[in-house]
């Protein structure tokens, strides 16, 4: 009987520490979730004479994928994005982050281009606005231009089926 209270406190501690173990410290939660997506106006990768603004996408659900030809993890996720683009469920826009134009174009030629359009963020300024601290990162943005979800690291088939696609279907309806 007299051990019940210490045992209870111990169990509570164990539960808290157990929850702590399941967290991934590499994934820093973004303060931008449920906030308007930072506005950008950037030149297109394929056609530098044209620009694209984030506000051009108001009224549709879209994804912004931060990528670079120098990023190794981007190669892991790239086939997944290519498959996703074939499904035609959601337009994916690329933010070509701190990259060289020619190598980036070459990279898309080699591995396929899943993007509606890629825009050039040469000095990473837009990346800072979006709170990018690694590549790849992917944002889901709704019709009102609000960031609803951020995926850190490579997009996998599992993350698409478990989280991203259900959310997109919900946002589209």
């Amino acid at each position, binding site marked *: 009987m007299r051990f019940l209270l210490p045992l209870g406190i111990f169990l509570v501690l164990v539960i808290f520490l157990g929850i702590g173990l399941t967290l991934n410290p*590499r994934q*820093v*939660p*973004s*303060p931008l979730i449920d906030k308007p997506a930072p506005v950008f106006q950037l030149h297109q990768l394929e056609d530098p004479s044209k620009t694209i603004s984030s506000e051009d996408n108001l009224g549709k659900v879209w994804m912004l994928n931060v990528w670079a030809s120098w990023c190794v993890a981007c190669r892991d996720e790239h086939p997944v994005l290519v498959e996703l683009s074939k499904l035609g469920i959601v337009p994916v826009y690329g933010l070509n982050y701190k990259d060289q134009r020619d190598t980036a174009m070459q990279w898309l030629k080699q591995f396929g281009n899943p993007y509606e359009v890629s825009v050039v963020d040469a000095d990473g300024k837009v990346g*800072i606005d979006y*709170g990018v*601290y*690694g590549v790849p990162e992917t944002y889901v943005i709704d019709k009102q231009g609000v960031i609803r979800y951020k995926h850190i690291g490579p997009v996998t088939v599992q993350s698409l089926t478990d989280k991203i696609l259900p959310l997109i279907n919900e946002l589209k309806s």
Partner: protein
Amino acid sequence: MSTDLLKYCLIALALSFFSFQGNLYANEAVPVAEDLELEKRLNKLAENLRCLVCQNETLAASRADFSVDMRNEIREQMKMNKSDEEIIDFLVARYGDFILFNPPFKPTTWLLWLGPFTLLLVGGFALIFYLKHRGRTKEAELTLTDKERLRAESLIKEMDKD
């Protein structure tokens, strides 16, 4: 005469060779930051900010690309006469409280800040209560019932006999 000339030529050649070597080894000096005061202020601010890539290093100490970008961003904003608070707000708005090495004091972090002191207080009170309580039980155990007293007296008498 001609040997002298040869000697000078050799010396000149050797010197030119060495100076050439020197050029090979000496890197271009890294320019000292234009504004020492600003760099000091930048470092002081960056000491309290976390590199999100290395996570256990400050923005001042880390050499990750992320930290270099952040330092450049902070430097630019300082040159635009932004205050330290404004710069920190700018970073927190984009990267969250995690970028601060000292978590702010707000409802979600009350447990973090006050938890240890609460535990200390609770533990202290529990200890005091326990010690007082233990004293009382000791006294209670010391008072004998009549039966026990009779038995004790008979034992003492037996001992006296021996």
